[in-house]
């Protein structure tokens, strides 16, 4: 689905991503873990077109997508969420979701003025879809709140919700679970699994919670210092000496072994 070949991203002299190569298979929920500063978010930023790479190549289904701007990647079905949740703070939660599916007949001024009936139908369909998503994510009660007033966890859910408004092919989730309580985290995990099974979404998930990773992800890729350190099933990763040293520490080793 996605292949990354020898990707480099340098900030001045600092090599945030330093020759990473990896593959995300179609239909998988691939985990991406690693210590803070390993370059995971930077890797996402480069793949998703937010930052240009210093060198290297990214392909999607064999097609070169290196350096394409985010809005073009969106139309190819590549979506992402942010580590620090983003939202249109002055719009309501429902309006936030309704912003996502771009390019409909409402785009042209002609249609907006002369085909108001059709636009209204489309808007209504969009609102129904948004309500389904809100229901799915169990945040229907905040549908008419300004998105800026949501709690951190609810914003994360909203981020996930945006990816459900269209038929995405691959979704990159950057620390969806950070700052989210257990109940919400389970909701998110369930949503990811259902989207994967029912709608065929491929996921690449950055997360620090190893339970979450272990339950959801196969395979798991470990990054450290801008490079890919290891790849394998969650079980293999938790036993891997190099990974334990670089990231997991001995506490988790015991837990993983137990």
């Amino acid at each position, binding site marked *: 689905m996605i292949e990354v070949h020898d990707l480099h991203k340098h900030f001045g002299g600092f090599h945030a991503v330093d020759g990473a190569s990896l593959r995300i298979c179609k239909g998988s929920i691939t985990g991406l873990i690693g210590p803070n500063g390993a370059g995971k978010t930077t890797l996402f930023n480069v793949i*998703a077109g*937010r930052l240009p790479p210093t060198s290297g190549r990214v392909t999607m289904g064999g097609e070169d997508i290196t350096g394409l*701007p*985010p*809005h073009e990647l*969106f*139309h190819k079905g590549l*979506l*992402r969420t*942010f580590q620090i949740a*983003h*939202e*249109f*703070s*002055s*719009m309501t939660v429902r*309006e936030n979701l309704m*912003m*996502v*599916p*771009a*390019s*409909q007949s*409402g*785009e*042209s*001024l002609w249609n*907006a003025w002369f085909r108001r009936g059709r*636009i209204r139908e489309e808007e209504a369909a969009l609102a129904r879809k948004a309500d389904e998503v809100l229901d799915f994510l169990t945040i229907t009660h905040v549908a008419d709140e300004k998105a800026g007033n949501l709690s951190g966890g609810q914003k994360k859910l909203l981020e996930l919700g*945006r990816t459900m408004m*269209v038929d995405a092919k691959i979704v990159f989730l950057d620390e969806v679970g950070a700052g989210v309580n257990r109940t919400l985290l389970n909701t998110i995990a369930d949503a990811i699994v259902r989207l994967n099974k029912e709608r065929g979404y491929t996921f690449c998930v950055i997360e620090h919670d190893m339970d979450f990773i272990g339950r959801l992800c196969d395979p798991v890729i470990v990054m450290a210092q801008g490079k890919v350190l290891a790849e394998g099933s969650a079980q293999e990763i938790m036993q891997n000496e190099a990974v334990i040293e670089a990231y997991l520490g001995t506490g988790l080793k015991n837990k993983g072994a137990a």
Partner: protein
Amino acid sequence: MDLLNALVTFANFVFVPAVAYGSQLALGALGVTLIYGILRFSNFAHGETMSFGTAITIMATWGLQAAGVTAGPLPTALIALPIGIGATILLVLGTDRAVYRFYRDRKAAPVILVIVSMGVMFIMSAIVRFLVGVEDIQFADGERMLVSARDFKTWTGLEEGLAIRTTQVITVVVAAVAVALLFWFLNRTRTGKSMRAFSDNEDLALLSGINPDRVVAVTWILVAALATTAGVLYGLDKSFKAFTYFQLLLPIFASAVVGGLGNPLGAIAGGFVIAFSEVMVTYAWKQVVAYASFGAWAPDGLLQLMSTEYKFAVSFAILIIVLLFKPTGLFKGQSV
């Protein structure tokens, strides 16, 4: 009677002129605030953009007049306005393509874009001077007065008259229509909503599949239309002189900042705040006070806080005060 006279004097010298001037400032400030919200810089070339649109409209007006086309009691410039808007759209889209896009692609800091816009300002102002020169140009034709002071006095029997010029009414009507259309566009159309989304959170807007080039182009088109309309209305109401449009930059920015940069509703409110302050501070209140106190107090002085030559100081003072105490403006905008 005296109270009515006080009221009429006030309406004649303060309220009516300030409402017309406020409408012009509001339209100007809307352009500034849209650019700030979407392109994220303060466009110093905005006054010259207004000036350019007005210059083209004036030339088109002359052409129409020469061809014998007029709008009857209304100024011919209203027919010529779409031509001015069209030319200004081409100018700003061309400028964006040739200048601003280069810096946008490099993700230049806002301060760099501000300086760049000053360069653009000089070029535009040279173009305008080349086109229509630096002289004072009166281009309002048609019926001059809607209500003349003399008629008003005969109708009401009051000592004071109320004069309403056609251009003042046209200013208010055209500004109201322009604002209504703008808000319909921003709130009801998908393109308008994507502009608001882009202004709110650019990263997220891109991720939602919104095409930034399209948003930027649409913004420039709206700005050109607003700027030309503002410039033509101001020119009809007063007169056209290349240099005055440069000076208008200060009250226009003050309006946008007072209302909260990036906030369209704020820009409108800001325009009226600045216009009323300017007119009221520079107005000699002697007559109004004399009437209102039933002649009991006829002040010796003019009761004028500041002479009209200093009117720009009012905008400046308000600008400073707002920046010191409420940098996001009276309505929530982006911090400057």
